């Protein structure tokens, strides 16, 4: 693959006549982009042609579908903390990115997509493979822009990278017409962008509200911290840990914040949300001061808003002013990057412990343990459970792996039971809930963190969305492990049908191909597990393999995920089983 015939200097030297496509590649190299996920086509051919001279510098991963490209770029960004980069052609190539853009937008993932576009003189003529990509993608990008003149390329791409990664990160799409890609022009070189005059990536931190927040925390009897992905995006894991340990406050994560601190940290009390743990959900309505850090009070976390933490004073730390007071009214708002605000807050708070208060969480955790977790992880029946698979993976990887999940019951189970010792270990489609995310995101995650074990966990439904990316694994050989938890149903939807639609299982029984044979067709080894006696050995074999490997585990067909905060109910109305509904 790395067989570049031409030896080229690292960067194109400035002030030479070159074409727009070379300027694109030079921009990527100047931004230290090492990996691009993409798929070629007519309108982006000049860029691919320029890339051909640089294939020893830029690792281009040819995916099997553009949706795969953008999910892979998201996985890359999430595991590495760098910007994920995507190439796609005009028309269908670009529209295939839309789901991934929406996913990256709602989960604040830094991605730069470069799409080809028809010649500028053809815009608006319904030319072959012309779509109005800018208007289609406006609501699902942090910024987008169409380039029709090569002279703009460097500045626009510099701006794209800056906007994607600064402040609250997000996806940016740059649409470049073919004439601009081909146009010869005086190339002035690339300079990174550090400022956009109409854009403020983050608020300046002011001590006044830090001080107010600290006072409130110091006066609290039952404070409770809830944290989200903002801690990870801000690369503020250490600052957060310092804050937590000095304050002694119990803390719970949102699905997106998971792994910001080790999941087994003594102050961690579990996961929030619809299928989160009993204690953090219930105690949200018991605490006197709720400290929300880098999270956005999604409705899957809050349940019914008018029954959410009404008794508590709320401190909200966020980089995005639009999140403050959006869903939950704050008592003290702390605007700013938590990398900056947390250390200031830590400085002003008293060192405390909250033993008795923490004990209340532990008691509820024990209740959940007894009613749900023990049987889920150590089932007495012959049927395998999703939970026991996750438990074994924890043991076998020692909590060191990156878990990439798809969407559904297995996602909730994986996030409930995974042990994660390192940050950036939980990669999942949180805000959008995109089935088909796991395989491509795992591929990207592996390229973003080559030294880490990457395990993709998915259902039999989601596995068949974007399964074509097995082809990408076949060709580029990222070592990713694929675990399909097959309940022969679109499980999460079936669960809702069981609980809320009188078991009318309307189109949720889904048949699947022989996943192991399918993997083999792609040159990937695999095994199917139907009995507990084979499970551990098979998972071990998968992890020992120095290639990708697929394991399909047949699990209980009609297992449900509990606890659950039923839709329209408050967090304190969380139930532990069908009997409580």
């Amino acid at each position: 693959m790395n067989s570049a015939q031409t030896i080229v200097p690292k960067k194109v030297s400035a002030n030479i006549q070159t074409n727009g496509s070379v300027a694109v590649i030079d921009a990527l190299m100047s931004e230290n982009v090492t990996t691009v996920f993409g798929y070629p086509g007519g309108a982006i051919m000049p860029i691919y042609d320029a890339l051909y001279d640089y294939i020893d510098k830029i690792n281009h991963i040819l995916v099997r579908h553009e949706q795969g490209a953008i999910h892979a770029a998201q996985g890359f960004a999430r595991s590495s903390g760098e910007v994920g980069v995507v190439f796609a052609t005009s028309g269908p190539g670009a529209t295939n990115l839309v789901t991934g853009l929406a996913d990256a937008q709602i989960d604040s993932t830094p991605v730069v997509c470069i799409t080809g576009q028809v010649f500028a003189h053809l815009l608006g003529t319904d030319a072959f493979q012309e779509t109005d990509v800018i208007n289609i993608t406006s609501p699902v990008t942090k910024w987008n822009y169409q380039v029709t003149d090569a002279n703009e390329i460097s500045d626009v791409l510099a701006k794209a990278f800056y906007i994607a990664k600064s402040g609250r990160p997000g996806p940016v799409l740059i649409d470049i017409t073919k004439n601009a890609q081909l146009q010869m022009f005086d190339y002035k070189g690339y300079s990174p962008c550090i400022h956009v005059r109409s854009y403020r990536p983050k608020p300046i931190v002011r001590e006044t509200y830090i001080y107010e927040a600290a006072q409130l925390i110091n006066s609290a009897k039952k404070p409770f911290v809830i944290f989200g992905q903002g801690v990870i995006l801000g690369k503020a894991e250490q600052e957060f840990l310092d804050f937590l340990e000095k304050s002694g406050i119990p803390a719970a994560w949102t699905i997106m914040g998971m792994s910001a601190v080790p999941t087994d940290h003594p102050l961690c009390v579990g996961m929030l949300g619809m299928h989160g743990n009993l204690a953090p959900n219930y105690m949200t309505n018991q605490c006197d001061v709720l400290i929300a850090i880098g999270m956005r009070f999604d409705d899957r976390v809050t349940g019914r808003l008018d029954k959410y933490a009404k008794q508590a004073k709320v401190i909200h730390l966020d980089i995005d002013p639009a999140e403050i007071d959006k869903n939950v009214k704050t008592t003290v708002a702390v605007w700013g990057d938590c990398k900056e605000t947390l250390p200031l807050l830590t400085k002003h708070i008293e060192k405390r412990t909250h033993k008795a208060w923490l004990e209340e969480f532990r008691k509820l955790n024990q209740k959940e343990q007894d009613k749900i977790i023990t049987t889920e992880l150590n089932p007495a029946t012959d049927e395998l459970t999703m939970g026991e698979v996750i438990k074994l993976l924890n043991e076998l990887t020692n909590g060191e792996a990156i878990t990439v999940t798809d969407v559904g019951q297995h996602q909730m189970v994986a996030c409930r039971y995974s042990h994660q010792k390192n940050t950036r270990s939980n990669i999942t489609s949180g805000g959008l809930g995109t089935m088909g995310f796991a395989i491509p995101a795992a591929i990207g995650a592996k390229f973003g963190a080559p030294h880490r074990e990457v395990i993709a966990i998915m259902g039999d439904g989601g596995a068949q969305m974007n399964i074509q990316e097995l082809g990408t694994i076949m060709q580029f050989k990222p070592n990713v492990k694929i675990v399909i938890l097959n309940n022969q149903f679109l499980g999460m939807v079936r669960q809702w049908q069981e609980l809320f639609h009188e078991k009318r299982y309307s189109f949720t029984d889904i048949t699947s191909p022989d996943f192991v044979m399918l993997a083999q067709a792609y040159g990937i080894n695999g095994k199917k597990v139907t009995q507990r006696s084979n499970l551990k050995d098979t998972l071990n074999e998968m992890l020992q393999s120095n290639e990708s490997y697929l394991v399909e585990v047949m699990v209980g067909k009609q297992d449900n995920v509990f606890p659950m905060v039923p839709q329209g109910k408050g967090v304190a109305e969380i139930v532990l089983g069908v009997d409580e509904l």
Partner: protein
Amino acid sequence: MSKQEFTLSIYTENHVGLINKIATMFTRRKISIHSLNTSPSEIDNIYRFTLVVIESAEVVQNLVKQIEKLVDVFKVFCNTNDEIIWQQMALYKVPTQTIMKDIKVERVLREFGAKAVVIREDYTIFEVTGQDDEINKFLNFLHNYNLKEFVKSARIAIIRANEGVHKKVIEMDANDPTKDPINNEFLSKKTMVFNY
């Protein structure tokens, strides 16, 4: 919360497609835009959108923050009617005959503060500049005179209190990322983020 009229003044870069990005902020939330005007502003190359919506303060407050997040938007001011000076313009076309027969043009002009911009044998065009009630009153009146055509412009508004964003934009433009951004000055004063 009760709904009322809010006028948003949005200062933006002059980029193609921005009108769409701003419009989708409203349509996505099923908020109808009652009036929309785009114009240059007091600063070269910076545009000013003026929009009118009828919504609750809470909804508008969130909306304003979301619009300000658009990369190409500098600043959004959100005002109730008592905080602005605002005007619209309307044009009315009536057959000159009916007008001549029944009323004295001069009297009409005086009574409604209207101006005749064109007087031809076959028709006359009046212009009224003012607020909705003035414009509507004249409209109702002319309905009795075989009104042929009517059009009303979008609202334009000047904010009473502030001095525009000129100074602020000049500073943002200074291309100095270390400089304190002015728009954060109000963040610690919650109520003032909204109205000032």
